[in-house]
């Protein structure tokens, strides 16, 4: 019953602050995803043809994802200090695997006959990658980016332990004040904010995916 009491009023009263936190949260997630896309798609493109580098990249990024997030944020304090910088580094590490893996899968799944005909028509390696292989792999790559974003929206909350920005701040504050009248409302509002942000971003990816995928590839 404590739960319901005044939740609506809480959100209305705190709206400006909550909204700022949501924006901060979205910013750090999107910034980290953007960096992870550049690094991850790049790594994928460099390694998808060669067995050993490919296995190595997938192995390392896979290990990143298994490090408990609380521990990783903590471990980054000594080299990078507190605040946004270590938070972004940690989030990029978590975002890499789905992006790298889907880039590699997408590029490797391109029909070899299509690649051969491109080569046979005199397209060089990079032109082939940019004009043929990448656009064909794109639907799979953007799915990877979408998955990474979803993971980061959740994990970014933990960044609050190292003074990172976003809705995690409210969660940790409320945890520190368990038992006080507004603690539950505060945590609930932050969690709800994270869920809604996740949904909005997901919808945005669906739209972007549709708009950026060739009509010739859609069902």
């Amino acid at each position, binding site marked *: 019953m404590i739960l319901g009491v005044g939740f609506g009023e809480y959100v209305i009263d705190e709206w400006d602050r909550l909204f700022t936190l949501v924006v901060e949260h979205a910013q750090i997630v999107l910034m980290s995803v953007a960096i992870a896309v550049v690094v991850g798609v790049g790594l994928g493109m460099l390694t998808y043809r060669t067995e050993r580098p490919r296995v190595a990249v997938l192995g390392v990024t896979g290990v990143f994802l298994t490090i408990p997030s609380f521990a990783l944020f903590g471990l980054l304090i000594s080299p990078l200090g507190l605040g946004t910088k270590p938070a972004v580094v940690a989030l990029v590490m978590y975002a890499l695997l789905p992006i790298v893996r889907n880039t590699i899968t997408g590029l490797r799944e391109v029909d070899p006959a299509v690649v051969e*005909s*491109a080569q*046979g*028509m*005199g*397209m060089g390696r990079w032109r082939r990658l940019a004009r043929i292989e990448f656009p064909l792999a794109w639907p799979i790559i953007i799915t990877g980016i979408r998955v990474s974003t979803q993971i980061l929206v959740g994990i970014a909350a933990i960044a609050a332990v190292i003074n990172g920005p976003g809705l995690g701040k409210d969660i940790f504050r409320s945890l520190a004040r368990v038992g006080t009248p507004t603690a539950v409302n505060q945590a609930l509002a932050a969690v709800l904010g994270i869920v809604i942000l996740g949904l909005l971003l997901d919808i945005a990816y669906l739209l972007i995916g549709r708009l950026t995928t*060739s009509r010739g590839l859609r069902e």
Partner: protein
Amino acid sequence: MNDPMIRLEGVTKRYPGQDRPAVEHIDLNIPDGEIVIFVGPSGCGKTTLMKMINRLIEPTSGRIFIQGEDVTRANPDELRRRIGYVIQQIGLFPHMTIGDNIATVPKMLGWDSARISKRIDELLELVGLDGPTFRSRYPKQLSGGQRQRVGVARALAVDPPVMLMDEPFGAIDPITRDRLQNEFLRLQADIRKTIVFVTHDIDEAIKMGDRIAILREGAQVAQYDTPQHILSAPADDFVADFVGAGASLKRLNLTRVRDVELTFWPTVAIRADRAEVLSTLRASDKGAVLILDERQRPLRWVTARDIERGDIPLEQAGLEPEAIVEPQSTLQDALNLMLDSSHGAAVVVDGNGGYLGAVDFATVAHAIQGMRVEAREQLRAAAGLGDRGAAAS
């Protein structure tokens, strides 16, 4: 003879870790404007040999000349833009429209967009597709046969003198394949490209090739010759086995009715009386006489018994000639009709339906014998020159 369009000199491909080369020291001349077929059992190296021409596979040694230029030293991408390339799976780019697919090489060569657009319509027209309808479609919206045609149009985009085709009709159902093959032959009669065509199907080779190179393991040329000669005079047992049973029947497909000496069956004009019909029949060794109308068109086959039966008018006596062929029909068509006909003869008529003669068993047997003798003589002449086999050009 003119310089060949493509000349292979001692071309060899060796893969590391394999005892025998995949292709061993091939010399071959490919004449301008001809379809040359590389045919052989799987693993014989025919595709490897073809892909060395546009250097999708780099030769280990040897040289390849196109129009006299040594292309083993050229920039491979620039070389490939000058050579049309069609593969079995066609490999259209699924994310691009048909127009953009065709525009690929012109764009790389820096054509302006007006010229490219005009060329797209021209090429689609050439392969029998409506430009405005098809240029904005995507490959998945096309049937297999349509995709194949677009593949050919795309390969022809910058009008390259040379085309390489790797089993281009391999993935298409037999009925459509036959139609596309015929269309392609008609197209080739206009565009006169130098085409290297790889297939494992000897029947396709005979149908499509001006010249066939039959390859055995290591891409060794077992025989390089016209389809007629390969069928009439296989160079050795390998070729004979590969061509398979029924070589004579296959050859009938290459021969037109106009090329053979027709047999003359007795004919009688429609105005003739019974006595004249009977006397004509008696004077001939054939069992039936052909009644012709005023314009020399065949009307009925009539036998002595039909006449003796009594008072049926000539235009209703006997049987209607159903087996009718024209001079451009193949002997195989004629033979087929003949086998079903009442008197064992197919009637040959000209474009206006006028009687020219007939094809019967004697005609076919005589034609086959003639082909065999001719091929043997040519082969003997070639052997006398000491270059039988590889350098048949």
